[in-house]
């Protein structure tokens, strides 16, 4: 039987962690783009669009990410193509992130004082101009800390993609466990790698939030 040192285990896990990082980046960026579209629908003047956005957010926030991954995996398969795991994982995570980001950003847009809408309207700005020049720049300031905070949820969410067969950090953990029979060490190290990825982001989000509160004090 081959002996595995802790370094062998750690090396293989870190090697697999790049897929976790890559999938997180793609999901977060893609989720941001789709989320912005959902946000626009959510705050649009058209009732039908608003309804659609509310339903979309409710659907993705009210069901397990794992089920969404299964549905993406088997749903894309219905189109008659062979679905690679990364495609199902990426598309499900993008749609899932979009729902959460849209909801976070909606709160930020609503935090902008109503007078700002009225003032910009009274300057004859159209809806898009209002958003572009007055509302979004102010909402953006409030949006940064919770958005950074949500990136931690995305990284943790990617762990579930191992279940539909995408080989990232968690899947590597299972594979390495099956080879080494050292689940305590392996899952402990996997958890520590996730922690090393997430904790700096959590701290950063926290410090951004505190800065924002300081800036708002005295208003």
């Amino acid at each position, binding site marked *: 039987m081959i002996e595995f040192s802790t370094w062998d285990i750690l090396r293989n896990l870190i090697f697999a962690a790049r897929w976790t990082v890559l999938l997180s980046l793609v999901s977060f960026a893609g989720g941001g783009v789709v989320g912005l579209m959902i946000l626009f629908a959510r705050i649009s003047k058209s009732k039908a669009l608003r309804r659609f956005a509310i339903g979309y957010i*409710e*659907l993705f926030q*009210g*069901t*397990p*990410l*794992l*089920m*969404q991954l*299964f*549905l993406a995996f*088997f*749903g894309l*398969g*219905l189109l*008659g193509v062979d679905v690679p795991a990364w495609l199902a994982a990426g598309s499900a995570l993008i749609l899932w992130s979009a729902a959460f980001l849209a909801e976070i950003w909606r709160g930020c847009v609503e935090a902008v004082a109503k007078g700002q809408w009225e003032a910009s309207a009274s300057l004859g700005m159209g809806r898009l101009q209002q958003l572009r020049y007055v509302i979004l720049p102010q909402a953006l300031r409030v949006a940064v800390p919770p958005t950074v905070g949500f990136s*931690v949820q995305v990284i*943790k*969410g990617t*762990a*579930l993609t*191992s*279940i539909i067969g995408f080989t990232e950090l*968690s899947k590597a*953990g*299972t594979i390495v*466990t099956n080879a080494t029979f*050292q*689940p*305590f060490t*392996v*899952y*402990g190290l*996997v*958890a520590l790698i*996730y*922690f090393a990825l*997430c*904790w700096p982001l*959590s701290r950063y989000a926290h410090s951004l939030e505190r800065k924002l509160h300081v800036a708002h004090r005295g208003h």
Partner: protein
Amino acid sequence: MAYVFDFTWLAEYWPLLVKGVRITLQLILIGGVLGVALGIACAWVRALGPKALRVPVAIYVELIRNTPFMIQLFFIFFGLPALGLQMGEMTAAYIAMVVNLGAYGCEIIRAGIAATPRGQFEAGASLAMTPFETFRHVVLVPSLQRIWPALSSQIVIVMLGSAVTSQIAVEDLTFAANFIQSRNFRAFETYLVSTALYLLLAIGLRQAMGLIGAAIFPKRSAR
């Protein structure tokens, strides 16, 4: 090629889905109650408790909040037996959910305690209450009331996260769906139905949390 949806399997397999829903409910009921209790205890330590305990609790909270639930579950179920701690899959699932909700609950409840006006503590002290009595009788309930919506959302998130426990053979709703789709070869329809059931569970749980909140908290007087 047009795909024809087929839900006729429901006639045969619905009892399995019902059983899955029951296990998922059982997980969130027990995990939720114990998790909130742990969250309250940790929030007390972090906000008002003995200094020696604050750092360990802070480390616990940060470790749990920055790692995936699935890895926590695997560590408990596959990893801890190496230390001689054998347990069944249901026990592992309960422990993982309580530990997870405890950490998130701690942060949420702590925010509620932090928003308590200083005068409340002073009023308690002036009535000769010990700090713990003040916490228990004066501070706790209004603190929980402040953060009840956030705590409710977190409990819904933990319920949805419990889908992962199917991976250690807990026979919850996801496990039922996995089993059924391996028999009927109608994976998409099966997951569609179970997803809809989860959505109903989430909506129902949110309603229930609202009712519980209305029952245990006094009506806010108009200021």
